[in-house]
Every structure is written in structure tokens, then in C-alpha cells.
């Protein structure tokens, strides 16, 4: 039986402006050479693409615009699933809204 993947993009409105949560912090950690998200009792280490996406959740971009901007920046197409998928995860974790 083929399992239909329920669209994970259900909660993501690609036209909604996204903001990084004011209760958390996104910062560069020199000792780890990585960006991290800091929240009460926790640290999430980020890779470069995740950091680039989150930096654009700045109250000025929506998911569509983030996609356009990053495809241009990395000179690559077909990033939609990856970027929207990560934004979904970020919303679910309360990192952005």
C-alpha cells in the first residue's frame, strides 16, 4: 500500500510574513563555528542552509520571497521542498511564526 504523505505544508502559508521568535536567540558561536538557536534549557545547532533561512524570517519576508532570494543567492533551483519543509519544522518548534 502506498502511504499518502499528508502535505506537511498545511500549516505554512507561503504568503505570510515570517518572524523569528522574540523569546529565542539566533547567534554565532565562535567556539563551535556554528549558528545556534538558544531557548530556555536548550541549544539547537544549525547548519548553513538552516541559518540562511532563519535569518530571512525577519518580519519582511514570506516563504515565497525566502525561496526566491535563496535560489538566487545559491544559484540553484528546486529548493522549494527543502526550504518549505524546514520552515514547517521551524514553525512546529516555535522558532518562527
Amino acid at each position, binding site marked *: 500500500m502506498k502511504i499518502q504523505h499528508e502535505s506537511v505544508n498545511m500549516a505554512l502559508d507561503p504568503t505570510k510574513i515570517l518572524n523569528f521568535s522574540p*523569546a529565542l536567540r539566533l547567534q554565532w558561536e565562535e567556539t*563551535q563555528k556554528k549558528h545556534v538557536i538558544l531557548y530556555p534549557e536548550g541549544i539547537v545547532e544549525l547548519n548553513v542552509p538552516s541559518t540562511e533561512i532563519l535569518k530571512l524570517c525577519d518580519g519582511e519576508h514570506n516563504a515565497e520571497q525566502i525561496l526566491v532570494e535563496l535560489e538566487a543567492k545559491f544559484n540553484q533551483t528546486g529548493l522549494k521542498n527543502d526550504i518549505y519543509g524546514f520552515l514547517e519544522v521551524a514553525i512546529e518548534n516555535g522558532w518562527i511564526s
Partner: protein
Amino acid sequence: MAGSVNLTITPPRWLLAELTYSCPLQCPYCANPIDFASIKNELGTEDWLRVLTEARAMGAVQLGFSGGEPLTRQDLPVLVKHARELGYFSNLITSGYGMTEAKIVELKEAGLDHIQVSIQSPEKTLNDELAGTESFEHKKEVARLVKKHGYPMVLCVVVHRKNIHQIREILEMATELGADYLEVANTQYYGWAHLNRDQLLPTKEQFEEAEAIAQAYKEKVKGKMKIYYVIPDFYEDRPKACMNGWGTTFLTIAPDGTALPCHSARELPGLVCPNVKDMSIYDIWHHSEAFNHFRGDEWMKEPCRSCPEKTKDFGGCHCQAYLLTGDMHNTDPACSLSPDRERVYEAIFKARNDSESGNVKPLVFRNPKNSKMLA
């Protein structure tokens, strides 16, 4: 063949700054050492500023200001400001006692990131009885003010036999107060909690019921409130991976500047813990005997030494091994493979006996008078 525990020294990530042992509360499960009243010479502001700077340079990023009650330190805003400038994510771990709205605003402006307020029980009489002071309404008010001023609010409730039946009310209180995070922390039996273990340790049935209720509630409030459920290990088969591995992640500095690999480590006889007045944080982390003592697996006895799980739990908790067996190098009896496992069963048996005896022992409250008497 068992693997080996990694010996590479990783940088500290979490710094717990125990600013003082002073506390207006008297909780009988306090993690502070029994003899806190005889530990003098609190670090001054300059020393704390240096500690923060040095630990940050090594990689520490999560910072807890704790105690005792950290609000009793007049220089708290100065330390918070310095921490923010250094890039820490800082947390104030408070009873709420002595907190005012003006202070909440001042600390916010200084750069404090979040506040953890502890409440002893969702019911006034029990809260005040456990805290040893009338504090219930004030604590709830502080929790509301923390929210009002835009902090993420972490509510912490320590659970034990006196309040475990109130688990539903604890969860509902957290929702009512708008907590962003709720820490339901089953008592860990160190310090004063160890002393009062017969009076505090719940039965297995009580644990299981409370855990089931909390887990179900966790699902219900998913996305609104994050619940951290800290499990007790007396009813587990395997010990906790204490401190994520000794000297790998956590650094605690006690009020007198003693550097500890875990906040209970000063209970361990034979472990000579360094002091920040004598050594840099770098040297403490890399070169002190105490921080190297349980790194790797050379120290291990059987059954840990040949156990494939040693890379996961590092032999469990050394403080618990000491408190239950008298030797910190033994396998933590929270592990069912420990030859001293019966110590755990004895503890459970004694606690059950106490609760069923109809003549329960009184709690020994954490205050300077009892501390001096017991030390």
C-alpha cells in the same frame, strides 16, 4: 567488546552560577549541601564577572543564575548585564521571593533572557508549608509579571510524596499562569532531599500514575506549553547519563568559588574541587584533578567497565553511587546490573514504611539552624 568513552575534552556549554546559599525559603528537598551554613566567603562581583568572561571564552553559552535565592545578591543586574554583553543566554532560577515588578523590568533592561519561578504546590497551605514561609500568592503574582514583561516563563514544580497527588492541579496551574515551559521535576535525592528521602520518596504506583497524567497532558498542550518531565531513577532499570558525562558539558560554580562538575559534587569525599580564586576556568576545566576524575572510563569498576552501555550512561551518577554505597566509583545502584541494587530497594522500602507507619517522620527543613546542627 565494550567500546570506550571518548576522552577528548569538549568545551563547557552550560554554566550554573550559584551566587549565594542565602535563601528565604526552607524547602526540605533543596539540592544545596547540608553544611551550606558553614560555607562562607561568597565571591565578590569582580570574581563573578571574571568567571563569566572566562567561561564564555571557552564556549559556555547557557547560563543559570541560581542559589540559594539569587535575588538576594545586590549585584545581580550588573552580572546579568555583563552576561548579555558576552552573548550568554541567561536564566534566573528563583523562588520569586523578594521579586518586584521594578526588579523584573530592571533585569529585562540588563538583558536577562528568561526567568524560572518555582512553586512548591498548586495549593496555598501545602506550598507555604513546604517553602517554610508564606509565599504562594506572591509567587503566582511574580509568574504573571514575568509573562507581562515579555519573558519566556518557565514554571518549576518539584514533585515528591507530599504533592505528587496534585499532579493534575500542577499542570492546570501552569496553564492558568500561562507558562511557556513547565518543568515537572521529580525530586532527585541529594543534599536535603537525601536527608528527607523517607518522607519524600513516592511509591512506584504514585510515580506511574503521575507520569501517565503528565504525559497525556503534554500531548494536550503541545504547541502551547512545553513540558519537561524530569524522571526519578529509583524506579528505572538504567541510570541517568549524569551531567551528559562528567566534565563534558556542565560547569557549576558554588557561592564560595568552588568549581564543580555537578552541583552535588562537593558532597563527594576525596574529590578535591578547585576554586576560581586559585585557578583560571580554563585550567579548572582542562587540568584539575576533580574535572578529570571521571572523564573517560579508566575509573570504572565492573559491571560498568565491560558494559556496552557505558558510552551511553557513563556509569550513572557518582553522587548517587556515593550516597547509596559509600563509594563514588561504584556503579550507580539505579542500574539494575549494579551489585548494590538492593540499596535502592531498601530506600523504597523505608520510604513506604514511613508513609504507612501512621507515625511519619517530620521533614527537616533547609535552614541555617538545621544546617549547623547537622554539619
